[in-house]
């Protein structure tokens, strides 16, 4: 078993395949008592791989340990948002959409046009959001989808943006009522009523306090100018 600190949570975890070894390296830590224990037995990994033959056993370990972590984070006032998160000047902005829409492309364009020193990817696919001491934070985690782009840091949550492809660039604020169905498409939905209630408690606070937007964009610099200048919190 290894010890990781992820999103300020002590995670005691069993793993041994290359992807997670590499991804988890920046999160290695030490503590006396764990908050979460993640241990998928070897025979379970084999069974899961047989069920998902397009995945390697390395993929299976990476994906299912991540799923276990994000199921547990609900007990720590947190949730997963399937999104690409970019940090600029002390704020994190999350761009959420179905896979293949272009959320990583958009945050990659932020890096291209604002500079890689100014715009850093906190997690390219699965950032964690947690309420800590009454504040809403985005955390990097070892689980960042197909890319290794994640940072072991936390940043105040600046905005959540639901992204879609469009030939015309546009951005508009949306209500929590409009955001909630979109958000539920991009998080893990607990079936257990008590867990669902906890998730809704967290969403109640986070969505009340966070600017929410809908962005339609292409791959131009104009798209970056529009989204950055509209949602930035560092002015």
């Amino acid at each position, binding site marked *: 078993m290894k010890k990781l600190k992820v999103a300020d949570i002590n995670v005691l975890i069993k793993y041994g395949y290359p992807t997670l070894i590499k991804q988890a390296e920046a999160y290695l830590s030490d503590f006396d008592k764990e908050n979460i224990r993640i241990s998928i037995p070897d025979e379970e990994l084999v069974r899961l791989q047989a069920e998902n033959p397009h995945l390697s056993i390395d993929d299976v370990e990476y994906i299912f340990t991540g799923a276990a972590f994000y199921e547990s984070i609900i007990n720590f006032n947190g949730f997963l948002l399937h999104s690409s998160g970019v940090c600029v000047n002390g704020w994190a902005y999350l761009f959420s959409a179905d896979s293949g829409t272009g959320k990583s492309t958009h945050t990659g364009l932020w890096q291209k046009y604002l500079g890689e020193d100014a715009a850093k990817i906190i997690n390219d696919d699965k950032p964690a959001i947690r309420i800590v001491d009454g504040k809403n934070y985005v955390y990097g985690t070892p689980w960042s989808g197909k890319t290794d782009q994640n940072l072991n840091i936390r940043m105040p949550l600046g905005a959540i943006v639901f992204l879609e492809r469009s030939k015309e660039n546009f951005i508009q604020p949306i209500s*929590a009522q409009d955001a909630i169905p979109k958000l539920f498409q991009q998080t893990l939905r607990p079936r257990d009523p008590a867990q669902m209630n906890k998730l809704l408690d967290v969403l109640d606070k986070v969505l009340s306090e966070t600017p929410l937007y809908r962005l339609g964009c292409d791959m131009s610099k104009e798209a970056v100018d529009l989204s950055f200048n509209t949602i930035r919190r560092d002015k």
Partner: protein
Amino acid sequence: MKIKEGFLLRTVAGSNIVVPIGAGSIDFSGVITLNEVGAFLWKLLEEPTNKEAMLEKLTAEYDVDTETASKDIDAFLAKLREANLLDD
């Protein structure tokens, strides 16, 4: 009639939303958003009731004439039946 088992009505960031839980999440994977009257009617339907009782409670709670309230209830029930959310 009554709302099927497996749904949770909550206020989140000022919006009334219904999410499936437990058995409800097998058949229904969406999220329902309700306006104020919709949430009021949904709560009535969490216990077995009938249209007459709903009409009485709706007109007592809101400043609405019986005819309009009756149409509103019919429309709401039709939507619930369409989504297969109602046990008759």
